[in-house]
């Protein structure tokens, strides 16, 4: 009897030890793989600095902490010609879906502090107008509030809607230009292309100026979900259509 119990517990201990070492091995190798990835994608960080708001040109957007689904779609869009910025297309042209997904997941998981925004140079009235557009929209001009889709704090929504704060103003303006002239596309219906066509230049500069001047909360992260349907139907957000 005793011997049997002994054998049984010995058996269990062996199982436990085995499980433990498998787990230890797995976590170790996962770490090793992830460390490997950081070095592999150093090319991305050269421009998309993890903590800086922008490089000297102020055109490279922050990618750290953006929703993984959004980042993955953008990588595919660059690779497959739906978004046009040759240096990005060049980088990802010969990469696989699997690897791009892994890269997107990696940058989505990076937590890096947001530096203080550059001082706002726009007149106070313009900033007020920008704030109103961002948070309330303008029903008369059929412009929904940014916050209605991009989250109450404009920090994005998992997994497909990007944050709008912590981005350089030049980058934001350039995206509207790209939607207007067809150099940037998302899955149809392309809701942001609609907004870009609808918004006046004046309103556009007001809202991007206000967005770029916002201080981002220290623990900013994309919101878990958002009330559907969205004010506009967006092909890249399932369930967004009314």
């Amino acid at each position, binding site marked *: 009897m005793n011997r049997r119990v002994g054998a049984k517990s010995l058996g269990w201990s062996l199982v436990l030890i085995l499980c433990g070492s498998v787990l230890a091995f797995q976590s170790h190798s996962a770490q090793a793989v992830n460390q490997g990835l950081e070095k592999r994608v*150093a*090319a991305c960080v*050269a421009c998309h600095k993890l903590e800086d708001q922008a490089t000297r040109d102020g055109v490279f957007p922050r990618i750290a902490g953006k929703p993984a689904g959004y980042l993955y779609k953008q990588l595919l869009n660059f*690779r497959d010609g739906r978004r046009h910025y040759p240096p990005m*297309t*060049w980088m*990802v042209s*010969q*990469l696989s879906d699997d*690897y791009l997904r892994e890269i997107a997941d990696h940058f989505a998981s990076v937590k890096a502090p947001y530096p203080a925004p550059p001082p706002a140079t726009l007149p106070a009235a313009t900033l007020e107008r920008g704030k109103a557009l961002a948070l309330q929209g303008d029903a008369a001009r059929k412009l929904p509030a940014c916050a209605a889709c991009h989250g109450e704090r404009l920090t994005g929504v998992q997994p497909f809607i990007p944050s709008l704060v912590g981005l350089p103003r030049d980058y934001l303006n350039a995206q509207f230009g790209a939607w207007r002239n067809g150099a940037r596309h998302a899955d149809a219906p392309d809701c942001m292309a609609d907004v870009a066509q609808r918004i006046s230049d004046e309103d556009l500069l007001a809202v991007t100026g206000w967005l770029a001047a916002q201080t981002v909360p220290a623990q900013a992260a994309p919101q878990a979900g958002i009330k559907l349907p969205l004010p506009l139907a967006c092909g890249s957000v399932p369930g967004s259509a009314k």
Partner: protein
Amino acid sequence: MSLRGLRHVLLGLLTVIVLALAAVFYWQWSNEPGSGISSPPVADRQAQLRRGEYLARAGNCVSCHTARGGATLAGGRQMPTPFGTIVTPNITPDRDTGIGQWSADDFWRAMHNGRGRKGEFLYPAFPYPNYTRVTRADSDAIHAWLASLPAVRQQNAPHQLRFPYDQRWLLGYWRALYFRPGVWQEDTRLDAQWNRGAYLVQGLGHCNACHASRNFLGATSLTGELTGGLIPMLNWYAPALGGNAEGLERWDVASLTRFMKTGVSEHGAAYGPMAEVVRQSLQHLSEDDLRAMAIYMKSLPAVAPAPAPTHLKPAVADGLVKQGGPIYEKHCIDCHGKDGRGQGRDIPPLQGNQSVTTPVANNAIRMVLHGGFAPATAGNPRPMGMPPYGPFLSDEEVAAVVSYIRAAWGNRGGAVSADEVARLRSVPID
């Protein structure tokens, strides 16, 4: 000679020239080499389809006949050439917009003799000077596979070629000068493996389309050497592949095979247009075929290394190299090492790397400016990326660091100027 006599002579000469030109055209138009070679019987249709798919990979049909983000093989990719832009056609089996009405004979005529279904001369951007070496059985297999694919309805866009290159009939003269149809003949003095390699490299692989220089009319040498050259419009230098040419001696058959299969090796990685060739074509070939290609390449006569360019005064060149050392230490040394040897297969060596020391320094300059990833392949699914330094270094700084790596560790590449960097900064990169 009297004036009238001279006029007679000139008129006679003109008549002879016109007649000769007409005769050449007539010969090119009416001569149908290969038309007597008919389809060999096919025992196993499924096996033929699998073979066709494999051979289409070897010929890399997909790369050129697919637009970025477009339907596979439905054409529409714009190929810049010095003569204008060629827009590749739809080769899916759609009856109206693709090649659904092409018979195996029509397809063979295109592959072997560079003629379209209605007999029109095809532009040699379609590499029929290489594909002419493909056997009838292999041509049939590719045709059968293409015909088995889903048809995609997508109208072909017209080429945008300048006069006189938009005059297709003039290709009759181009063909007379630069095209010789002919099925690959085995060299019985050499073994089957060498012959297989030669068949793939010279034929479907169309390696010399890039790895050889082209003349002013876009033709490569009829003998199909792999002497290296600047790829027109793409502005990458495809290095010489001959045997043990400088820089190639360290590549043995095993490392060449690995490079083609995975896109990386301990001697260098594929990037630029070669990354696409590896990802779309070479990685899908069998180890046996890749080894055969490597054996063939190693058997080619070595090319004498081109002399280092001397357009910079020695004092200027020395100054650039000296200026480049500290830039290398700041930005490059962590990965490529103080001896320039890189790290395994992930980070290519710069020392003795023939792509660093090419006669024209485009490759090294562009990698520094734009960075890039080796291709993702089954054998190397998570390739390493080289960061772009274009946004952070001035033309002069890039020229300095490239001059440095082309001169350090025994490299003999010659210094490059800031002007060369400025020119490459703005070339289209996708």
